[in-house]
């Protein structure tokens, strides 16, 4: 028999992902799950999943999970962490959830230095509801609620969440990564692991912003969407560590 070198992490269940073909969510799910496996923290991890494309995250992450109301995951995570400080608590949120309706919750979780890790998927659009404009939608980008392209004069420029949260005293580790190439995926996993480690070390609030694609709502093939991300998103949302508070 062939020697099997690659196995699926047991921190993902066997449930079939509901994500569209080519979507980055599946990659990020696996990275988070592999990090939990490698750190050996499955039995003390609690995940909080959002409203948005990742709403069924509780089916996939093989850890105790809670489903939060739209935008409220950081508040739910706060409740969990305050009751069980020894738990490792993460939220997994999209850009509508985190940067729009949940902007208050994420800012204040960071401000309190809440010892949680947020995985923030920025794909510049509302996916689950069918491709509406997000606070992260690029200027000129067409969506179902910006059919002529996002107009800066009408609704402003997209929010750079990682940079904003890096200015907050309570944040300990903030990095922006992308999952559009193998090299970037490897960097993304390192960043996610670092964030979990910083949480476990009690340093404060940690967030990894992941630039991801949405081929369905961008109206592109998976490959085209990866290129579009590279050419359009990364220039506006520069990758890299925005904050690292190591003592």
């Amino acid at each position: 028999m062939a020697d099997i070198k690659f196995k699926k992490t047991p921190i993902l269940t066997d449930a079939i992902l509901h994500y569209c073909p080519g979507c980055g969510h599946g990659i990020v799910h696996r990275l988070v799950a592999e990090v939990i496996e490698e750190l050996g923290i499955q039995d003390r991890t609690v995940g909080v999943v959002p409203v948005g494309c990742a709403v069924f995250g509780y089916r996939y992450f093989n850890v105790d999970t809670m489903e939060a109301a739209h935008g409220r995951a950081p508040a739910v995570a706060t409740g969990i962490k305050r009751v069980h400080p020894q738990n490792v608590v993460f939220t997994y949120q999209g850009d509508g959830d985190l940067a729009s309706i949940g902007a208050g919750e994420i800012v204040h979780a960071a401000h309190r230095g809440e010892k949680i890790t947020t995985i923030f998927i920025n794909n510049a659009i509302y996916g689950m509801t069918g491709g509406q404009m997000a606070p992260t939608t690029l200027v000129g980008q067409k969506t179902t609620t910006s059919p002529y392209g996002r107009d800066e004069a009408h609704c402003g420029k997209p929010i750079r969440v990682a940079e904003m949260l890096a200015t907050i005293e309570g944040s300990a580790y903030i990095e922006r990564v992308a999952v559009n190439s193998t090299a970037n995926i490897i960097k993304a996993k390192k960043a996610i692991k670092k964030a979990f480690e910083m949480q476990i070390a009690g340093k404060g609030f940690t967030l990894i912003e992941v630039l991801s694609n949405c081929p369905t709502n961008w109206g592109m093939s998976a490959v085209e969407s990866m290129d579009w991300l590279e050419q359009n998103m990364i220039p506006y949302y520069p990758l890299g560590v925005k904050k690292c508070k190591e003592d």
Partner: protein
Amino acid sequence: MAKKLMKGCEAVAEAAIQAGCRYFFGYPITPQNDIPEYMSARLPKVGGCFLQAESEIAAINMVYGASGAGARVMTSSSSPGISLKMEGISYLAGAELPCVIVNMMRGGPGLGSIQASQGDYFQATKGGGHGDYHMIVLAPSSVQEAIDLMQDAFDLADIYRTPVMMLADGIIGQMMEPVEFKETTKKRELPEKTWAATGWKEGCGRDRAVINSLYIENEELQEMNDRLQARYATIQAEETRCELYNTEGAEIILCAYGTIARICKSAIALAAKEGVKVGLVRPITIWPFPTDAMRNAICQDSVTSAITVEVNAGQMFEDVRLAVDGKKKVDFLGRPGSFVPTAEEILDKIKQIRRA
């Protein structure tokens, strides 16, 4: 234990701690600030955690997280703040999570006033948030009763895995009364929280916890709703509470809850001096509503009519009329806003109805 003079809000907070509450998440709003203030001083000393949230919305979602993690947890607010919590309350009901929410009602709608009111009866008993759910709603009429009901509030929440609201008017919160913290003699048996999300791995002795209110398939959502409705039926059968005062053979029945019920008792004493027998039905649980007790008291042969007395435009009034089902005349005394009727005004209403 000796009686001591205590403000309602502080008494409620202390009673919650004595009932085992160790986590409090809240946001300042008048007239209930003494609750978070008291909690912020006391909880760290008993191994608990007080956290001032950035908003009412965040506070109720912190409650959701703490409850889902298995804690005895509460929040408190006053009317406009409770409106903000309603999203979270619906999620708590849907995810079947226990917690206690105190509402020290003030005048509304909108920013209203900071004076006492009973304007949130509909919100508390008929939903408030979205979907087919109920909370158990306890309505104390004195500071002492608020203390006594607090242990019940937490126990009922745990037994039925449901949010429980203590609905008090601002008078209860701000009034000082002599109170006593009694040892709980009849502790109820509480189910183990095997559903709580605390960290899991295969073979740890329980299923993986998923705290959730999303059921995307019609059949699954129906099943969840059936489970809730069955539980609500049990709560209605087992947990309905009310006080009957002087109702036997009364000519007129007053229906009131909270502080207003005490003013009704003063009016009953005034009426007795004039030779008129007036009784009172005082719901202690306003959900489940004591429909049978209300109907039985009002539909006695001796009763000519009932008067519902509230500090609102007539909200419980509707439930009283539903209970009586047209068999007796039900009148209403009350004003929206924050005008609390006096015993004399209630007596005048009784006289006016007898003349008619």
